[in-house]
């Protein structure tokens, strides 16, 4: 049972990271970025390319984060900025278009064959009181905790964080207070893209890198943010872990065939019965 929980927790942390980056953009723009899975995919491909240059592991990770930060800025400038005064549906449709473009671009640049990124930990496992864990799983949990602490510190203990939160809560009011919303939104996109970069770097060695790598993650992350309460930062984290645990518990004790069906049935049930999720609107507004 502990084994099942440990594995579910690690997957849940990945969903939490992706969900977190997803709702950052939602909070800043009130738009849904349907190309979010593709941002994870691109970061995994970039990480593969960086590793392939023969660069040390840490340097490849750094290169990926820098590339994703730049990408986030360009993405905001080219996709969100021109559409910022249009109905948000225009942005949503543009992100769907970008997701198709990004997948085909990846196919052209990196080819159709899945790619293997070597793991920094090899394929060894760690035995913790009878629970066999892959070192990557422990690392994912540790990184997620670090990211959450860092994000909390930035958002609640820095001037930049206050500006970002002010912009997320009310753009007009933030502007009246002397905050430049466009700049804050651009920073939010960069932070979100770097979070996708972290997720991509974490999953690339445990999954093979292909154009599909982000699709499943974003679907589960979407369920996670619904469960947690749409727009809530802690909700995304809790929701991610709930989804990770739920799917492995369903797969092990009910049916591996129906685990996705049960997860999505739960999503529909929650949308109908508890539209505000676990943390509801109050926390969402604070984020």
């Amino acid at each position: 049972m502990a084994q099942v929980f440990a594995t579910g927790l690690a997957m849940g942390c990945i969903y939490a990271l992706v969900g977190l980056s997803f709702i950052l953009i939602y909070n800043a723009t009130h738009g849904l970025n349907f190309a979010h899975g593709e941002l994870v995919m691109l970061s995994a491909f970039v990480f593969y390319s960086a590793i392939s240059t023969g660069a040390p592991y840490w340097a490849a990770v750094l290169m990926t984060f820098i590339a994703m930060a730049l990408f986030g800025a360009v993405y905001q400038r080219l996709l969100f900025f021109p559409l910022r005064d249009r109905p948000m549906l225009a942005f949503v449709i543009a992100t769907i278009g970008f997701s198709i473009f990004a997948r085909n671009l990846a196919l052209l640049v990196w080819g159709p064959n899945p790619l293997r990124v070597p793991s920094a930990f090899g394929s060894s496992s760690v035995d913790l009181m009878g629970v066999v864990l892959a070192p990557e799983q422990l690392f994912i949990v540790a990184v997620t905790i670090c990211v959450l602490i860092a994000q909390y510190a930035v958002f609640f203990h820095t001037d930049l964080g206050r500006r970002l939160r002010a912009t997320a809560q009310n753009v007009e009011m933030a502007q009246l207070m002397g905050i430049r919303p466009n700049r804050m939104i651009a920073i939010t996109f960069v932070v979100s893209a770097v979070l996708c970069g972290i997720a991509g770097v974490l999953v690339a060695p445990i999954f093979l890198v292909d154009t599909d790598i982000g699709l499943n993650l974003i679907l589960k992350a979407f369920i996670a943010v619904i469960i947690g309460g749409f727009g809530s930062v802690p909700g995304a984290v809790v929701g991610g872990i709930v989804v990770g645990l739920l799917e492995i518990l369903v797969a092990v004790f009910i049916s591996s065939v129906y685990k996705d069906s049960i997860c999505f049935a739960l999503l529909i049930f929650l949308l109908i019965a508890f539209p505000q999720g676990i943390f509801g609107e109050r926390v969402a507004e604070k984020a």
Partner: protein
Amino acid sequence: MKNRRPASRHLSRLIASVAAVASLAIAAPTGAAAQQPVKVGVVLPLTSVLAAYGKPYQDAMQMAVDEANKTGGINGRQIELVVEDSQASNTVAINALNKVMQSDPVAVFGPALGTQILALMPMTERDKITLIGGPSTRRVSQQGAKYFFRNSPHDAISKENTTRFLVDDLGKKKIGIMHVGNEWGYSGRDNVTEFLDKLYKLKPVSIASYQPTDKDLTAQILQMQRDGADAIVIQGHPVDEALAMRQTKQLNVNVPVIGSGSLCFAYLRNLVDPADIAGRYCEAPGPLPSLSKDKSVVDFVAAYKAKTGFAPEIYTLQYYDSMGMLIEVMRKYGVDREKIREGMSQLSYKGLAGTYKADEEGNLRHDSVIMEFMPDRTVKVIREKRQS
């Protein structure tokens, strides 16, 4: 009269010239037709997540065509491939075939995917055109199709070999089956289950499936352990079999694990660390082409590597061979669609992977081998079932 003779000569020359030009004009289309290339349609997944199951086969078939064209093509006519992308969708595959058919091909190669072949089959049967493909799903060739030829052994051949290997050779009785939740996976599961019952009166102790997009197979592996499986059969795609092998190692699964031909593909495409599969097994229609000492196979492997950067696996070799067989059929029987079907049904063709001879269902290949991945990163054939 003296003056009229040259005039009549001129007239007769004129008539002769006109007749000659006219005869040339009449003959011209026939001559041009003789120089028209012989078109062979190719419908394969070249983009989408299934692209890895298309491009290698296209490359191999193009090599066979290039070699044939250098030696005169089909009685002086060059062979031309008309290629369309089927992506990961049956609808796209049908549209691709429609497009290919507009170029009036003499035969069509389809994907190694059972569902797509089943989608294409009604059209090729209606148009009375030979369809060659490599899906191993048993029921594909049980549809009563007259024009379909399978260039790879079906699951009933490979899974009988696998079942016998696990029970007779390894002495295992508690077999667990993990499979991808699609036609290919279910075919593997059903055939292993059938042979366990038919040959040994056994039932699988555990069966777990997963979605093609699943990356974490821990739950399925834990289920195998919980149910006490003493050997695990996996039937999936290269990506998920590679991930399954890695995750079984990480979860300290020490029972024999045998993958399908997809695992050979994963091994050759560097999707799995050789250290992760040391001691694991895979089944395939034949040994890895790179293990062969036969000069023709060695030359093919070298040429394929030079062209694509990868070593070919057996399925790629089968597409190369079956294109070679089609070329030989066209040379011997002609390029008429009905003659091609007749030739494919009758000819026994010696390819690089073995002999190709159609049975009553249109299955051309009947071999199966089990290979073991050795700790020194080599691959060894440990069981063979050859009918060719």
